[in-house]
């Protein structure tokens, strides 16, 4: 047992190193000057420089990118999880003809990478007048998040004992009441998972905003990072500071949500 754990700790140590070092490179690099970085790419800050971070935090550009990303991600997540959980409820708890066909239709969405549809989607959005509009990104993102949402929620909802539903119906609850008051609360762990997936995929999405937004005031954070990188290609330190700051929201969100996501997948129903 102790020997096994030694191996475990060694492996864990290696994994942490490989994962964290690039992140540290970015964060610490932001505290250096470009000259320092060019002289010793793998060195530590000496002396520490605060200007890069201060400049990025003082720029309207950074905060605007952040706001745009947040708005789009919130809309996309709400739509995907709202509509997705309703559909998953219908597909898991009702018996009707064509149920499997509907389910298959949605799972087909897993096979349609958004990348495939982006070009036609762009033309379609242009026709709908949704270019340069946050909704033009958020709505398709929600649509493309539906399949995974339904695929995860349906078996979860299926697994909740029928007795529970029968008991609720015996107590006079309507089925929609059962959905709202019992099934959704019980599905919280799975809902957390799908919300996180939808939010993160929207937050990180690059290709669709790339086509939909031409005006850089509408850009989302990933677009902004890529743009900043190509615009300031001589100023490595500034790029690193900008990149480091743009990582913070996603990482913070993840730190807050991680436990519910993984730890919550079992549980709640068992009791």
């Amino acid at each position: 047992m102790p020997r096994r754990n030694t191996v475990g700790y060694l492996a864990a140590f290696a994994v942490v190193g490989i994962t964290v070092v690039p992140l540290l490179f970015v964060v610490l690099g932001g505290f250096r000057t470009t000259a320092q970085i060019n002289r010793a790419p793998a060195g530590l800050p000496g002396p520490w420089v605060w200007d890069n971070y201060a400049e990025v935090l003082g720029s309207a550009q950074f905060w605007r990118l952040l706001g745009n990303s947040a708005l789009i991600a919130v809309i996309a997540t709400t739509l995907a999880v709202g509509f997705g959980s309703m559909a998953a409820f219908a597909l898991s708890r009702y018996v009707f003809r064509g149920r499997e066909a509907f389910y298959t239709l949605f799972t087909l969405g897993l096979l349609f990478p958004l990348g495939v549809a982006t070009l036609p989607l762009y033309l379609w959005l242009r026709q709908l007048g949704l270019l340069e509009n946050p909704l033009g990104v958020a709505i398709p993102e929600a649509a493309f998040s539906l399949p995974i949402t339904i695929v995860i929620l349906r078996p979860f909802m299926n697994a909740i004992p029928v007795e529970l539903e029968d008991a609720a119906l015996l107590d006079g609850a309507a089925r929609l009441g059962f959905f709202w008051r019992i099934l959704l609360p019980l599905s919280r762990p799975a809902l957390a998972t799908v919300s996180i997936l939808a939010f993160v995929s929207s937050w990180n999405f690059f290709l669709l905003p790339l086509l939909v937004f031409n005006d850089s005031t509408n850009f989302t954070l990933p677009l902004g990072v890529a743009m900043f990188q190509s615009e300031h290609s001589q100023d490595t330190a500034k790029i690193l500071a900008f990149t480091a700051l743009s990582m913070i929201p996603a990482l913070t969100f993840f730190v807050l949500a991680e436990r519910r996501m993984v730890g919550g997948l079992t549980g709640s129903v068992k009791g």
Partner: protein
Amino acid sequence: MSTATSARPMTAPSSHAPRAGGTRRRSRTRTRLELTLLLAPALLLFAGFVLVPIGVAGFYSLYAWNGFGPLTDFVGLDNYVDAFSGEVFRGAIGHNLIIAGLSIVVQLPLSISLALLLNRKLRGRTFLRMVVFAPYVLSEAVTAVIWLLMLQPGGFVDQVLRGAGLGWLVRQWLADPKIVLYTLFVVITWKYIGFGVILLLAGLQGIPAELREAAALDGATSWQATRHVVLPLLGPTIRVWIFLSVIGSLQLFDLVWIMTLGGPANASTTMATYLIDHGFKRYEFGFGSAVAVILFIICFTFALLYQRFALRRDTDGALTRAVS
């Protein structure tokens, strides 16, 4: 409704017990209404923004069209023929396949080992999990910028290798056509390994500890319990991972677009970068649509075959299968 069932609580435990005709008809209408209410929003959203664009792409792909004005120049399947006869596009398909193959051979075993490791009672396990997942939550754009800077000639990676006495390994990571694809694969692995671990950990948590304990009582070693009890139960999760990983590899875009733009000399072009480069940047929307349809058909065929032969057993999906 409740009176109908509660009148016979002993004989009719299910709510589907026969009822008077009127009630049944009314409840059937009601059920239909509920179903419409529940399914319609998702269906509309899905049809309007997933199915329609793909269908429309099939239509555009038959025309030579720059995206403006009416579709007049019908060219039949010429766009498809052009795409396949181009060496760059064929190369792109190959690159996507290489990435997909490498993912299964390299990333899967790595993900499984990490998940098993992180599922153990190590001190600082929570912290470890966080760390492994961290790159997954970063956007590909951020990942691309980070690695682009680290992989500069004479940059961080080169300096670290030299410092470790591995200077002979140093290459033109992103400028050598022979290496660039593998460099990108390493970056992809760095970013996506956490996702596999999330998925597999969820699967592992669904496996009751009692099963392992029972195996141990029967004299199984830890490895045997893992091999013969845990891994088979992880099967559905693993199959789903393979599926997602291949589909992801086939549509690889952001990372390549930012790090290499498909270069040098098209050595890292993927189907998706080719699609955006030709369809969008050069305003060849008809041609781009044809490429989109090809990409779609490739993904679709793979997915159908995979569903048919591998995922069939897991109709319930894998992620939350073991919850009950």
